[in-house]
């Protein structure tokens, strides 16, 4: 995965427990930061854009909460939206079941991805082989 990230370093946007949300900022700031920094988008526009994304993912209520106050699902979706904020994003989800350990299958992951599928170009999920059955027919 590291090799993959380094070869696509300009567009990769990881979703991983190793890339946590900033704990001293609320969710909306964590996500809008990407647009503000990379595209110099104004705070107002970035916040509006992020809020729309949060609404699409059904987690608008967590916009002004900070990382420790989120459930695993909310945290995953926030991290996913943050990754999707990268322009022409190549989203890399690293061991999603490590982020939401109680999930029985990957249905929630794919549902979340489908809700914002216009915000990214590709998505790669990296997972251990022994978790293969949780993904069903979708694995390569």
């Amino acid at each position, binding site marked *: 995965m590291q090799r993959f990230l380094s070869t696509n*370093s*300009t567009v990769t*946007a*990881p979703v991983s427990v*190793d*890339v*946590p*949300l*900033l*704990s*001293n900022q609320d969710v909306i*700031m964590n996500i809008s*930061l*990407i647009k*503000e*920094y*990379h595209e*110099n*988008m*104004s*705070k107002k526009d*970035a916040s509006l854009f992020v809020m729309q994304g949060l609404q699409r993912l059904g987690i608008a209520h967590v916009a002004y909460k900070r990382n420790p106050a989120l459930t695993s699902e909310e945290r995953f979706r926030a991290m996913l939206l*943050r990754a999707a904020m*990268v322009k022409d994003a190549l989203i890399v989800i690293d061991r999603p079941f490590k982020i939401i350990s109680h999930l029985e299958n990957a249905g929630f992951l794919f549902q979340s991805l489908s809700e914002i599928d216009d915000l990214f170009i590709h998505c790669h999920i990296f997972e251990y082989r022994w978790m293969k059955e949780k993904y069903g027919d979708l694995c390569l």
Partner: protein
Amino acid sequence: MSIKSVFDSGYLKLLRSCAKIEFLTDMGCSMEWIEKIGRSIGKAGKSFGGTLAFSGKVLARMLRRKTYSSATREVLVNQIYFTSVQILPAFLLVSILFSSLLVGIVFQVLKDFGLTEFFGHVLMGLIVTELSPIFAVLLITLRSASAINVEMAVMKSNRELKTLETFRIDLMNYLVVPRIINGMVSMVLLSSLFAIVLMASGVLFSGLIFDMSVDVYRNILLNSTSFSDIFIALVKCAIFGFFITLIPIRFGLRATSELTSVPVVVSGGMVNVFLAVLIIEVLSLLTKLL
């Protein structure tokens, strides 16, 4: 007999070797002590050099227009809000109380010692240009610099800095520059505010203690004010602001992924901030003397 003699000579050898070992250990200790001093000096020098190099990098970034993205500006606004605006009412209240007390005591002491003629110089040269920056330094160091130090250390421990790097967000642009600019701006503005409050309370106390009219007070102030002193004081405030935020950031970034490293880097950072304040104060006094 032969066995004994061998034993004896062995015993002697052992004694000699003990003496030798002891001697070496003593020498070793003293050498180690000197080495320790040398190492500490080297370490301090290296740290000082590192801080200066880091300052250079930050200054270079500060002068680059590209640094000021929307995100950086937002962080800057937030930092100024938390450092200066949020505490402004309390700061003004404390300034009024403290400056009244200070000016009252200083004026009374001058009157008691018959040094009334130096009152303008004491007010401008000592209280306004020296004590006002120190007051603001104390406030910003205790409230913001310590918070910045902990914030950086915790972000490093939580791998949040790695997150920013992963998303190709420059730490220097996003974290360091806005905090340092905030330090400089807040220091200059807050110490100026304190100085103005102080001079205003001077009007009151000069009337009460010296029975001095506002016009006389104004004239004395004008006569004892030197623009070079004010300029030095403002530059000193900016330098104070620069270093009392830069050093905590630098030390905070030294934290490891272990949470136990946080208190270590925080205490180290704060001690170094104190040393930096002393050094800057001495340098500013030397500049004034020269």
